[in-house]
């Protein structure tokens, strides 16, 4: 019996929503340049306007504040190219981190939150600098942590600095209100909410006051010249319409599934560390499994028809592990052993149960093969489980498991 595939990598990209697929098929035959004045052009323009309106409604913006781009990366680049200095957090997407100015990277805490003290120091130094932009993501793609953007924006505005947020992961998973957040720019991406890749958007609070560095035609209010990706925009608009209703699903069902996944893994597999903090997206769970390498877990899960992601360097072309896990001060071993599970609208409780069973078997097998000894470590904490009340022993276990494991056979295990 061939089992159906389980996709738990929705943070990487999402399957096309059925309603989005229908809209794309319906408009496949249509052609028209929105800049043309005849019937075809007018129809194309109205489709574009409708898509823009749907997306603007999702984030409580005006339609004229939304411009379509080719994706989140282009949106990030359009904003950052307009500024000489970029202040960014240490866990930003690489398209922003590469643009960040040296010495203006804000460190984060172990739970992925921006270090407020350092943030205030850096933005105070940059006070009134018109060429400086602050960019902090709303939610992180690897560990799912959420930032308190409203407060960070307020502090940046007090120093007379513009604020950009990358909301690529957060869109459709948590409510976003650009008026409430008061951000100056926001990056949005379609393929994380059930629309195809190759289309994104940029929210600009004050479109008239923004000068794009890209030269060309007058499309998108002169802010992003080039003939619009009409089919992509229509698909994005449709996905945005659906996302308003899907928010409820994420708040309830997805959160429960993530909780179930976390608790089941914690119950069945000893010596794991949950890297996702409590204040996080409802669909992302990042866990490190001691003594079992990330790429090996990923490939073995893939053989069992379960797709996940890893922060291990081995799974990418990089030499170092994920910069996000390094920034939250996770020791390198645990970074190499991390797996990201990202749940989607199509994930079921049965998928979670099957994933837990498969992960347990795989981690057990890899640990038996591993050079890393965890038996001594386990023996050291097992006694208190017998002798002490359950709640107290749980606290001690949590304390041990959260300690950086430089070497599990280390003297601390004694």
């Amino acid at each position: 019996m061939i089992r159906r595939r389980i996709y738990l990598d929705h943070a990487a990209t999402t399957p096309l929503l059925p309603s989005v697929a229908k809209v794309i098929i319906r408009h496949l035959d249509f052609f028209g340049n929105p800049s043309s004045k005849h019937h075809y052009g007018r129809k194309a323009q109205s489709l574009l306007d409708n898509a823009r309106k749907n997306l603007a409604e999702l984030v409580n913006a005006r339609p004229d504040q939304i411009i379509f781009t080719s994706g989140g990366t282009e949106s990030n680049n359009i904003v950052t190219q307009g500024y000489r200095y970029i202040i960014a957090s240490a866990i930003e997407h690489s398209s922003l981190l590469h643009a960040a100015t040296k010495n203006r990277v804000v460190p984060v805490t172990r739970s992925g939150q921006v270090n407020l003290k350092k943030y205030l120091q850096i933005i105070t130094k940059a006070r009134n600098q018109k060429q400086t932009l602050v960019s902090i993501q709303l939610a992180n793609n690897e560990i799912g942590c959420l930032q308190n953007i409203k407060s960070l924006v307020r502090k940046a505005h007090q120093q007379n600095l513009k604020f950009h947020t990358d909301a690529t992961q957060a869109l459709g998973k948590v409510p976003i209100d650009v008026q409430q957040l008061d951000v100056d720019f926001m990056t949005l991406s379609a393929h994380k909410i059930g629309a195809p890749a190759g289309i994104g958007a940029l929210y600009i609070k004050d479109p008239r006051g923004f000068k794009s560095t890209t030269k060309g035609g007058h499309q998108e209010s002169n802010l992003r010249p080039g003939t619009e990706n009409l089919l992509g925009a229509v698909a994005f608009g449709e996905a945005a319409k659906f996302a308003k209703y899907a928010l409820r699903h994420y708040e309830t069902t997805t959160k429960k599934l993530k909780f179930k996944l976390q608790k089941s893994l914690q119950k069945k597999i000893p010596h794991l560390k949950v890297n996702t903090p409590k204040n996080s997206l409802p669909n992302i769970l990042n866990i490190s499994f001691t003594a079992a390498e990330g790429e090996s877990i990923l490939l073995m899960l893939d053989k069992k028809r379960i797709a996940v992601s890893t922060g291990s360097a081995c799974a990418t072309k990089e030499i170092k592990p994920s910069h996000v896990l390094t920034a939250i001060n996770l020791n390198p071993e645990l970074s190499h052993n991390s797996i990201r599970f990202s749940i989607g609208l199509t994930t079921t409780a049965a998928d979670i149960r099957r994933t837990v069973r498969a992960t347990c078997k795989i981690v057990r097998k890899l640990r038996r093969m591993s050079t890393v000894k965890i038996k001594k470590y386990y023996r050291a904490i097992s006694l208190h489980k017998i002798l002490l009340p359950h709640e107290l022993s749980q606290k001690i276990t949590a304390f041990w498991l959260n300690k950086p494991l430089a070497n599990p056979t280390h003297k601390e295990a004694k």
Partner: protein
Amino acid sequence: MTTPWAYSPIVKQHFFHPKNVLYESESEFLHNAKGRAGNTRCGDEMIILLQVENNRIKKIKWKTYGCASAIASTSMLSEVVKGMTLDDAYKVTPKQVAEKLGGLPPNKQHCSDMGDEALRNAIDNYRPNQMV
């Protein structure tokens, strides 16, 4: 049809069905040579244990913490050197192991290097009269 893996079918075979793995603890396998290479901080570590008799590798067992390449490389290396004399085993190169595996991605070549290092380490640490 999906794109084939970056790894060769032989690497896949040795990764999913590795040969000569020591699943139990080291103390449960009688050995008179032990070698280690790599570092868990870098993401790959290997231990090779040899049972040598009359200067020939009678049995070989290994443990590996690492990616698919690391596991497959150690598995293939263990199959290659089993039954060899210590001198012949010492001459086995990482390139030979990588070739037997059908090649490794460029960023994974170090896995075959590490296996070779662990084996040579084990041979250097060989104690003829000390079976542990």
